[in-house]
Every structure is written in C-alpha cells, then in structure tokens.
C-alpha cells in the first residue's frame, strides 16, 4: 500500500517536471523567435546537403568511379563535415547576435540578464539553431546516398543506385521548393522550379566537366 503511494507520488512528480519543461520550452520558443530562424536554417542547409551530394555523384561519374564504397565514404564524409561546420557556425553566429542583443537590453534595463528567461531563451535558441544547422544537411545527405548502402551490401546494382540517388535528390529539392512555397503563401510552383533548377544546373555543369575531361 505504501509502495503504491510512493509510486504514484513519483509519477506525479515526474509529470510536474515534464509539464514545467514543456512550459519552459514554449516560453523559450516564443521569446527567442527561433521558430522562423529554425525553418530558414533547415531549408537552407537541407538544400546545401542535397546539392553537395549531387556534386559528389557527378564528380564520381566524371572521374569514372561510380563505386558504392567511394561514393558512400565521400558522401558520409561530406555530410559529417557539413554537420560539424553547421553546428559550430550556427551556434557561434547565433550566440554572438543574441549576446549583442542581451548586452544592449542590459544597458537599457540596468540589470544582468544572463540568469533570466531572456538569457536562457538566448542559449536555447543558439543550441536549437546549431542542432538544426547540423542535422538538416546530414539528413539530406543520408537520404540522397541511401541507395548506395544497398549497393554496398550487394543488393542493388551501382548504376541503378546512381539513378535512384539522382532521382531522390531532385525529389528532395522539389519538396524543399514546395515547402518554401507553402511558407511564403505565394506561388508554390515558382519555388519548386527554382530549387529543382539548382539541381539541374549542377547536372549541366557536370556534363560540361565530363566533356572537358574527355
């Protein structure tokens, strides 16, 4: 009986802590205005990740090395590099911008804001921006080269993987364009065509390179 009472008190405490965390999360989101920035970072970096993978695929084709092992290692290496660079770049940039804002507010208020909702929201925003900046290109890169994992395991033909990868990248660019169109509330087709064109331009440059090298 006593054990049951202790269990229920533990779970209600846990529930209260979770509710407090959720409330803090909502407050930080609202105060920092990170929602809009996060969306921008996500689109920009997922776009970067997809186009970089297209570049690697085209480079491999021009260099005559459509080997799953090479493409996977180059793709994963580039994905990790984009993730690490995104994390540190976004964290430092956001932290610098928000520190400047906080210092200017401190001057107006004549108080220290570091251990307040405003200060904690600024740290939260910098970490969120960094995580999104790191994970979005890595995710886009991973989706783009995922068929080569099957090729590496001997399930799929490398050339088929190559074609599926290019198809996946163009689809990813198209989805990002549609998402941008939805965000703008304007012409979805215009954004979809613009993002897909970036992929097609990369492809054309690849063909030009191949002609140049042969």
């Amino acid at each position, binding site marked *: 009986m006593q054990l049951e009472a202790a269990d229920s008190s533990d779970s209600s405490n846990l529930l209260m802590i979770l509710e407090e965390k959720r409330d803090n999360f909502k407050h930080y989101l*609202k105060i920092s*205005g990170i929602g809009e920035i996060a969306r921008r970072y996500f689109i920009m970096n997922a776009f970067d990740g997809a186009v970089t993978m297209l570049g690697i695929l085209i480079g491999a084709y021009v260099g005559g090395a459509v080997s799953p092992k090479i493409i996977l290692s180059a793709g994963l290496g580039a994905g990790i590099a984009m993730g690490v660079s995104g994390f540190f770049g976004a964290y430092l940039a956001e932290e610098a911008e928000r520190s400047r804002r906080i210092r200017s*507010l401190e001057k*107006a208020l004549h*108080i220290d804001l570091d251990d*307040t*909702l*405003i200060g904690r929201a600024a740290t939260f925003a910098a970490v969120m921006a960094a995580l999104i900046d790191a994970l979005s290109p890595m995710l886009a890169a991973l989706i783009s080269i995922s068929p080569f994992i099957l090729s590496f395991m001997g399930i799929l033909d490398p050339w088929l993987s190559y074609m599926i990868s290019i198809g996946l990248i163009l689809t990813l660019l198209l989805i990002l364009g549609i998402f941008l169109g939805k965000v703008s509330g304007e012409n979805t087709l215009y954004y979809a065509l613009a993002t897909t064109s970036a992929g097609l331009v990369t492809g054309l440059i690849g063909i030009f390179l191949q002609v140049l090298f042969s």
Partner: protein
Amino acid sequence: MSDVKIKNLVIDVLKPREISIVDLSKALCETKGSSKVSIDVKEVDVNTETVSIRIEGTDIDYEAIVEKINDYGCAIRSIDGVEVYKMKKI
C-alpha cells in the same frame, strides 16, 4: 510570525519587449497569495516598455513576486503603492 498581510501592490517595472504582458501577468498570478493581476503599459521604447503592475490577493508573497519579475528579465523601478491589513485574532 507576522500577521500583517499584503493585500494590494502596485509596482512600476521596466521590461524587455520580448516579454509579453499576458505571460508576465499569468506568471505573477500563479505566485502564492495572489488572486488578481492587471498590467498597464505606460511607455513604449525601442527595446523596452514601462508597465504598471497591480497585484491583488489575500496574502501576497512579496519576495516571490520580486523573484518572478526578475526571472522574466524585468527591472523594478519603484513600488508605487501598497495596501496591508492585520489579521484579527479570534
């Protein structure tokens, strides 16, 4: 322990514009002994707003109010009004 309780409190506060008066008033109303909070914006600046906060209750916890206002990144400029009463012992 003192049996004099705070019933009404009027505070002049300078707050960052990021902080919504709706969130601030709700947070202050959640403190022990407070039952009603109203906030009026008196002055608007580029980064800050001067607001007048009126708190009503049966036993307002002044320290908790100050702590909450500070936690929201606001600066107390002055206490503009206070109303206290003594509990009658039966």
